[in-house]
């Protein structure tokens, strides 16, 4: 549906494969500068395409937009089905945006095997975009797994730490392990559909299509089983405490570019909103699941923040800060109400600007001192005022200061959690205090005070490319913080549909109609959306 948005042009396919095609073009090039420029051009073109999608996207709608659907393996019901809705479309834009920044960052910080690096980066972009635009679960899973290949090489070959090989392997093995369970869950969804289709004489009898899977009821105990299977896949990737131990290693040992992608693009928690909640609404809202998830979320918030508090190394601090923030996201998702879901979705996007911003800044510091450890800094604000200023701006967004994007998301999450049960909100609020404490304490020791010992030679302030990164992130931070309307409108329709889906559950859906909830709202809102 809604192909008319692009006059039948398969824009999502183009969006999906453009970076990969770009990577192939890079392969043919020899000169380093040419390769860099080509990589920038490709990622830039991708960003423009993503912006076209965002601009053509109908806000206040729950509809799946820009759909493309071709059969892939018909006997098993696997199809090449791409589409975006209010839940996924912003991630597409975010991915394209961050890739451009990573290309800029890598410009002169990656010094060896330049061609391979940018090829891997662009390939990674394709797989991540694939994760966000896939509606078919197998297709989704394929991209989910494919992502590991460029990631592995990026960490292993261009990592900054001595343990990068170990980190790369650890990342891959952890994620793979979770994925296997997720695959089982996906297969079980298919089998459930099949059983229903056979008894109701519906063709085709096999499907992995998300929208079709939504149309059949799933018994409660099966839902719970499938939920936990998929949970494992998502929890390792997210990562959720206690499945998080790969993250600090990868963020410490891997290249900054990879850290930006892993910490900024919240694939795991996206999966909960995209698949777990709508496909398994009864399980999601069952007390057992919800309580466990909320406790995991709160544990992550507090645990991450307190461990971050004492970290002397910025990247490790940010790793635990990420874990803490992910706790917030999970908290909002499993509040299962409008504000919680909306806040989580917005926060996932927000972290793509704030946490990544801090990682970029860690990268800037690393470029100057070959370390992000406190011992390499102290009192440098005077030498690098611009860097210090942007560090503070982005840091405050990460803390969730009103006026920045972080606040809007965090406020909505905590409000949603509070509505679910006051104790969730009350414990979650502690993260607000701890977040300020760990970040400002690091900032104080790194930036303020007298110039650190043995820091004789002066540091250079932000260079032009670095400034572009910092400024563009700051612009996004204030835009979402002060005038989030466009972003909220994009997501509101889908969030509303998700809330309704959670209320009605799958049992009501067992009437054989195609996507009753989503399709209905979609139609309604398309008309409404056009009128505005």
């Amino acid at each position, binding site marked *: 549906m809604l192909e008319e948005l692009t006059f039948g042009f398969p824009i999502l396919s183009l969006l999906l494969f453009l970076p990969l095609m770009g990577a192939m073009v890079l392969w043919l090039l020899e000169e380093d500068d040419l390769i860099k420029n080509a990589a920038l051009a490709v990622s830039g073109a991708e960003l423009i395409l993503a912006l076209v999608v965002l601009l053509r996207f109908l806000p206040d709608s729950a509809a799946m937009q820009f759909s493309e659907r071709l059969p892939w393996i018909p006997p098993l019901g696997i199809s090449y089905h791409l589409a975006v809705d209010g839940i996924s479309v912003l991630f597409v834009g975010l991915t394209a945006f961050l890739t451009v920044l990573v290309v800029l960052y890598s410009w002169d910080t990656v010094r060896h095997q330049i061609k391979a690096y940018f090829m891997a980066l662009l390939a990674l972009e394709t797989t991540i975009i694939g994760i966000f635009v896939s509606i078919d679960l197998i297709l989704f899973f394929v991209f989910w797994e494919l992502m590991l290949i460029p990631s592995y090489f990026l960490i292993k070959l261009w990592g900054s730490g001595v343990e990068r090989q170990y980190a790369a392997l650890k990342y891959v093995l952890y994620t793979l392990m979770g994925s296997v369970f997720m695959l089982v869950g996906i297969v079980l969804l298919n089998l459930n559909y099949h059983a229903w289709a056979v008894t109701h004489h519906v063709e085709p009898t096999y499907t992995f299509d998300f929208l079709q899977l939504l149309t059949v009821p799933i018994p409660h105990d099966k839902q719970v089983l499938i939920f936990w299977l998929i949970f494992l896949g998502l929890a390792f990737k997210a990562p959720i405490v206690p499945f998080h131990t790969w993250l600090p290693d990868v963020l410490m040992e891997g290249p900054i570019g990879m850290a930006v992608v892993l910490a900024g693009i919240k694939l795991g928690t996206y999966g909960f909103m995209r698949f777990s909640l709508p496909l398994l609404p009864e399980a999601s809202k069952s007390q057992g699941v919800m309580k466990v998830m909320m406790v995991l979320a709160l544990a992550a918030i507090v645990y991450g923040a307190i461990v971050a508090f004492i970290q002397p190394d910025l990247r490790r601090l940010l790793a635990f800060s990420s874990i803490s923030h992910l706790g917030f996201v999970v908290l909002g998702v499993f509040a299962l109400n409008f504000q919680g879901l909306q806040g989580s979705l917005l926060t996932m996007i927000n972290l793509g600007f704030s946490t990544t911003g801090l990682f970029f800044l860690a990268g800037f510091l690393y470029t100057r001192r070959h370390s992000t450890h406190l011992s390499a800094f102290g009192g440098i604000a005077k030498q690098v005022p611009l860097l210090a200023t942007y560090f503070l701006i982005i840091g405050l967004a990460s803390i969730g200061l009103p006026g920045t994007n972080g606040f809007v998301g965090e406020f909505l999450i905590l409000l949603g959690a509070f509505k679910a049960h006051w104790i969730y909100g009350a414990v979650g609020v502690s993260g607000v205090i701890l977040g300020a404490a760990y970040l400002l304490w690091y900032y104080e020791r790194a930036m*303020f005070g007298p110039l650190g010992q043995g820091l004789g030679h002066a540091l250079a302030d932000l260079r032009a490319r670095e400034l572009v990164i910092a400024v563009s992130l700051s612009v996004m931070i204030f835009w979402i913080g002060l005038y989030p309307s466009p972003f909220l409108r994009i997501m509101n329709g889908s969030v509303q549909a998700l809330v309704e889906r959670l209320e009605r559950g799958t049992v009501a859906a067992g009437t054989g109609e195609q996507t009753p909830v989503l399709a209905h709202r979609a139609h309604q809102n398309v008309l409404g959306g056009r009128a505005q």
Partner: protein
Amino acid sequence: MFDLLVILIPALPLVAVLLNGLLGNRFSHDAAHRLACGSVGLSFLSAILVFAQTLRTGVVREVMVYRWIFGGDLTVNLAFLIDPLTCIMLLVVTGVGFLIHLYSIGYMHGEEGFTRFFTYMNLFMVSMLLLVMGNNYLVLFIGWEGVGLCSYLLIGYYYGRVSAAKAATKAFVVNRIGDAGFLLAIFLVFVNFNTLDYTQVFAQAGQLSTSMATAITLCLLIGAVGKSAQIPLYTWLPDAMEGPTPVSALIHAATMVTAGVYMVVRNHVLYDMAPVAMTTVAWVGGGTALFAATIGLVQTDIKRVLAYSTVSQLGYMFLACGIGAYTAAIFHLMTHAFFKALLFLSAGSVIHALAGEQDIRKMGGLRRKIPWTHGLFLVGTLAIAGIFPLAGFWSKDEIMAHAFTHGYYVLYVMAAIGAFLTAFYMFRLTYLTFYGQSRVDHHVAEHIHESPGIMIGPLVVLAVLSVVGGFPGVPPESGWFHHFLHPVAAAAGEEPAHGAGVGLLTMLMVIATLIALLGWGLAHYLYSVRPDAAQQWAARAPQVYTTLLNKYYVDEFYDLVVVEPTKRLGLLWDWFDRSVIDALVLGVGRMTQSGSALSTAFEKYVIYGLINVLGYGNHRAARSWRKLQTGKVHHYAAIIVAGLFILVHLILVWWTGSSGVGVALK
């Protein structure tokens, strides 16, 4: 037109922030401060016009700017509420703010980061204005945290100093504790009323149960206690004196710290429904008023004495709120803004004259060298001590009289003792600074000079206000001030004119004056007549003296019970996190050797066991994870895959067996 004026009030300083912030390094200092002061001046003019309009029509107006956060049942607008309470706050904030901006031109002259200073000051104005103008809790909260940020930035203005950097972080984090409480209050409000707009909330307040009203107001109080530096979250304010003196005057005396008082008064409809919360507010206020005053007795840093006096005076405002004297609280807020700004700025003038010296033990005899500053400081001292008929007398007397006539005798006595102590330590400060023998360093003494006109001018205005600022509130409880604020700040069922007899009120005024004079007299005796007596007194009770000097060791106590345990916990958990990884890397063998404690067992059986259960079976056979990358990858991968395969198979068997679709699989 009116709407535009209202929007201009915060918009003008905002424009100045953007211009100075983005292009400031290309501006000359003159351009930067003209922009900064001009914008605040114009903002003040707009505030006057808005105030005049409100005074003339008496209409409460709401001005919508745009829809900020929305979705589902939540809609939060960036919108302003203009009522008498807001008008008073606007005048105080922009008026005093403007004077302090002017003063700063002189005070900050030649300082590094001049433009940065004015950018932060203007940003502070924007935040404070949003705080007092917002028509809902969330806009208030933008300002609420915004002023906290500016306070952070300005305390850390001299960021090269470790003490300044530490004080800045401390201020922000302690404020955040209060902010967290405030957030909880916002959530409670939304859950109960489904809106965050004041007008709708207060209109529906009647349906609230007492316990819910108590919960909301106590959470609000946590926020107020943080921002307004009351017990137990007051510790950041004295440290905040690390900032430049105009900052101390504007933020840590005249405006920001009064935000808590404003917020309580704004929510008085809810407080009126919650007697328990009211009592708490009153006792927090009374306790702080007395407690901070005792610390103020012995401090030796001119700004710290003023800081503790600020904490103490804010305590009076909370006390007033707690006994339902909301108008009196705002009245004292206003007069305090005048005389405390005056005191801080003239203290700044002293510091300026002494090239940065803040220790009163190294002052003395400055009366003749800087006569203007002396005169102005004396006016401030008289006003804060509550000497008739200066501003502080009327507002403080009103609070105390209200406490007495409404039967809060214990609180009255606390306030009275506090007033005595206030008069004492303020005159102690005056005597030590301006009278007696000079104890000034020789090098410094040669260069003592009176401050320039740009600094003295605003001080004169503030001094005049400190003298006459109390008259709008005369006669007590039925002055113009009370009638103007009555629609928004009167406790339920309260009439502006109170029934207490004139005789009683007069008597209370006389008592208040006597108390102040007593404090003055004692200070005169100890620091002017018998300069050595003070030291003898201190020597006679050394423990009391050291306890006071060390501020009752509250900072140390917080460090011990909050900061240190958090660090320890962080270290413990970090070790835990790492040792799990270590265990995975280096194998179980080493793990069991290295650790025998409970934690090791926990790692082994819980975390490691979990990983084990999830598919990394056979870990006992594994010497190390590291081997995975040194040759045995295939071996392990095969085990993992086999294990998973079996697991998947089992799940599928279970599934197909119990759901009856096994046939379909075949």
